[in-house]
């Protein structure tokens, strides 16, 4: 596949890893925010390739994971109504609510359907005028324009049997929360490549400056992430804290203005509760007043349920990168993908699920042969001992920072 395969080349991956190893002189903690990037890192074992000094922690980049419990419960209650066809992206179906999940609702007779696109949900609404179609609009900024378009289109056509249950979250406020925590360990971020494809990356300068953290917007293939890590490590070693763009084949500074326009037309920013974390100011999107007729929460005005929050898992700490999944006493025992205690174990992008699926057999999450471990340690030690400045590789052409 073009624009995919080239970025999975193993020889270049090893070369990038070696470059990183040659550059590193002290330990650094990096975080990737986006769940899709977490998935790639785990699936290709990128952590295995990096020198021991570079630690990757996974951020809350899984909108499925952070959708509030109350909203899942509301979704289930809506789906259970006899005239409702509840449509959703696939990964939402197994997220546990307080008692069940959408799959369970389906088992009891609810009309729950997986769709690939919100436009498919619209099609179902047009084809079934006697049913009310609700679409579970979950996602980060990447997905918001598509969801906005569906609502915009519904209004334009005057559809009366379509609405959206919105659960949109924004990345920069989440990063801010992590950076503001008194026990934050993250020193650099791999920025979310597809969020930035939509939004551009102008929003990240404030964070880079205020907290003195380098941010490199990264893609989703293994070489993209390795290159982004390489750029971050170079910045860290040089004491810089700038915003750079590794994913320049898709991202530019201003982002996709047509997509942003539709988003602004349909949504507005609001405070939002993040599951496992709590409320973050101005961190979510809700439908504007003009689109109230398409807001499932307003249409179905379900009384808010009093939700019991059992004290069990540490997903909040995991979501903020302060703990690894493997640190959780329930991980792999009481909490597995089949019996999840928390959202990061349910979604395939959740840090816990990714760790469980790909890495649970290894204690540190990094399975290295002794030979490899000593080889990489040797490189780091050499670097640390030498007085020379870090080996300057060719400057990456096209990596822009404004």
């Amino acid at each position, binding site marked *: 596949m073009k624009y995919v395969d080239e970025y999975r080349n193993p020889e270049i991956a090893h070369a990038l890893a070696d470059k990183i190893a040659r550059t590193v002189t002290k330990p650094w903690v990096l975080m990737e925010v986006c769940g899709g990037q977490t998935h790639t890192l785990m699936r290709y074992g990128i952590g295995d390739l990096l020198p021991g000094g570079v630690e990757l922690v996974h951020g809350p980049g899984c909108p499925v994971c952070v959708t509030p419990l109350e909203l899942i419960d509301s979704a289930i209650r809506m789906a259970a109504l006899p005239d409702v066809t509840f449509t959703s992206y696939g990964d939402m179906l197994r997220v546990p609510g307080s008692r069940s999940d959408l799959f369970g609702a389906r088992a009891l007779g609810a009309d729950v359907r997986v769709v690939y696109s919100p436009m498919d949900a619209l099609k179902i609404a047009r084809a079934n005028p006697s049913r009310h179609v609700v679409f579970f609009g979950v996602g980060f900024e990447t997905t918001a324009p598509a969801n906005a378009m569906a609502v915009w289109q519904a209004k334009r056509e005057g559809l009366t049997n379509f609405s959206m249950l919105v659960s949109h979250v924004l990345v920069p406020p989440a990063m801010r929360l992590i950076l503001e925590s008194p026990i934050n360990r993250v020193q650099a971020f791999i920025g979310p490549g597809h969020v930035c494809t939509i939004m551009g990356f102008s929003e990240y300068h404030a964070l880079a400056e205020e907290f003195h953290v380098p941010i490199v917007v990264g893609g989703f293939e293994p070489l993209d992430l390795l290159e982004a890590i390489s750029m971050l490590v170079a910045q860290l070693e040089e004491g810089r804290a700038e915003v750079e763009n590794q994913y320049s*084949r898709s991202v530019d500074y201003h982002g996709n203005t047509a997509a942003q326009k539709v988003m602004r037309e349909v949504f507005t920013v609001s405070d939002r509760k993040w599951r496992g974390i709590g409320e973050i100011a101005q961190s979510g999107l809700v439908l504007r007043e003009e689109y109230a007729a398409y807001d499932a929460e307003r249409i179905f005005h379900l009384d808010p349920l009093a939700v019991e929050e059992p004290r069990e898992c540490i997903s909040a700490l995991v979501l903020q990168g302060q703990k690894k999944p493997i640190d959780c006493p329930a991980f792999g025992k009481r909490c597995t993908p089949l019996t999840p205690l928390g959202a990061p174990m349910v979604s395939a992008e959740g840090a816990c699920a990714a760790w469980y699926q790909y890495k649970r057999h290894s204690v540190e999450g990094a399975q290295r042969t002794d030979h490899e471990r000593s080889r990489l340690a040797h490189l780091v030690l050499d670097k640390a001992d030498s007085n020379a400045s870090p080996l300057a590789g060719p400057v990456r052409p096209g990596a822009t920072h404004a």
Partner: protein
Amino acid sequence: MCLAVPGRVLTIEGDDPAFRSASVDFCGIRKTVSLSFTPEVQIGDYVLVHVGFAISRIDEDEAQRTFEYLKHIGALVEEGLAAP
């Protein structure tokens, strides 16, 4: 929440830029994709597709440069110009 896949635009339908759609090829799979967010896209372009919408046109020059750079890194190691 960001699975977006690159594909090649084969045909385009519609004149109104806000409502054009394209048949996009992914390794032999064809899917109809909305071009509402990428009015500049032409036949033969590569686009990144997310939930049925093209969210960006892949800048082939940039992609080429990225890849040349990456290959260069790989070559440096191979030629022994950089210590493995």
